[in-house]
């Protein structure tokens, strides 16, 4: 039946270093991005040809969103674009035929288990946690760099000083939980998508003799995974941008609108802190 592991399976070890199949997936995505970037910028022109404008499309779209959020965007627009492209390519690479299905057969506890050779990179919590740690370090560093370490802690304390014993732990935990939420969101989405496609494929092969048109059912879920992979990449990159923008924002003036970031917003509230007053 279906057997999907939560952790990435080790393919081989080099000394003490274990190489898992999700590492292979991440390396493939990186190589694809590097090769594409090298090939397209080899003869880059001011009036781009088709391949160059294909790569410029996501780069300019993400850069446009980052530029619209703050005036100091040059410091971190490369990180946001890099995160977006890496997660996008890693997610979409997991939909190719052969990823998750071509592997080595083992026999574990009597029944056969397939160890895939390549696994989507974000289906491993180590990959998403690594990206989330990068984002966390970057936005804490930006906050400390702009406001000073004392200023950054003062932001965590909050405006009415007598509320500090209540607000300081709340702010601290909400900042630390960004690490957990970023990694868990990406991991949960991609891993659940992989389990979903595996389930649909098993369902299809089980009913293929009864219902020959069941061939097309997994294609719907592949399309769903295409959409969700792109949305999760965009969400990770935009959340990175939002956290850095909130860390470097000046808090005098429109304090009420910028102090409740997106994570304090619930769906019933009718104030949108991140929208521009237009």
């Amino acid at each position, binding site marked *: 039946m279906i057997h*999907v*592991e*939560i952790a990435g399976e080790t393919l081989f070890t080099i000394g003490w270093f274990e190489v898992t199949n999700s590492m292979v997936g991440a390396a493939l995505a990186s190589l694809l991005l590097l090769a594409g970037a090298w090939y397209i910028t080899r003869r880059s022109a001011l009036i781009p040809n088709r391949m160059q404008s294909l790569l410029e499309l996501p780069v300019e779209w993400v850069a446009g*969103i980052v530029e619209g959020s703050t005036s100091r965007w040059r410091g971190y627009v490369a990180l946001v674009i890099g995160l977006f492209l890496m997660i996008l390519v890693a997610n979409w690479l997991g939909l190719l035929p052969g990823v998750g299905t071509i592997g080595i057969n083992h026999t574990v506890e009597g029944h056969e288990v397939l160890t895939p050779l390549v696994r989507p990179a974000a289906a491993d919590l180590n990959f998403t946690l690594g990206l989330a740690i990068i984002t966390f370090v970057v936005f804490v560093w930006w906050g400390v760099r702009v406001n000073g370490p004392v200023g950054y802690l003062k932001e965590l304390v909050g405006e009415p000083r007598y509320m500090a014993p209540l607000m300081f732990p709340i702010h601290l935990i909400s900042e630390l939980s960004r690490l957990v*939420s970023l990694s*868990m*969101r990406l*991991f*949960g*989405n991609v*891993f*659940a998508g992989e*389990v979903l496609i595996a389930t649909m494929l098993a369902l299809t092969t089980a009913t293929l003799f009864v219902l020959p048109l069941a061939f097309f059912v997994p294609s719907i879920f592949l399309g769903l995974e295409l959409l969700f992979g792109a*949305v*999760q990449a*965009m*969400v990770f990159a*935009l*959340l990175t941008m*939002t956290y850095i923008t909130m860390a470097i924002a000046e808090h005098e003036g429109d304090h009420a609108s910028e102090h409740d970031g*997106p*994570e304090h*917003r*619930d*769906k*019933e509230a*009718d104030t*949108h802190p*991140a*929208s*521009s007053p*237009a």
Partner: protein
Amino acid sequence: MDSNLAAGLAMIGAIGPGIGLGIGFSKAMEALGRNPEAAGAIFVPYILGLALTEAIGIYCLVVALILIFAGG
């Protein structure tokens, strides 16, 4: 059997984000209907709000998956 039952019970927590996403989307559609030119300004905060709300449902799913694959 216990871990499967616990995993199924853990997914009851996905009711909340379902309602939240529906309300959020309806508010976004309402705002878009009032002012169709504000689609660009609505889009980025809307996607952010969707992702943050859906993350809660993903937490439930991760707990359920841990219970199935590594629980006893």
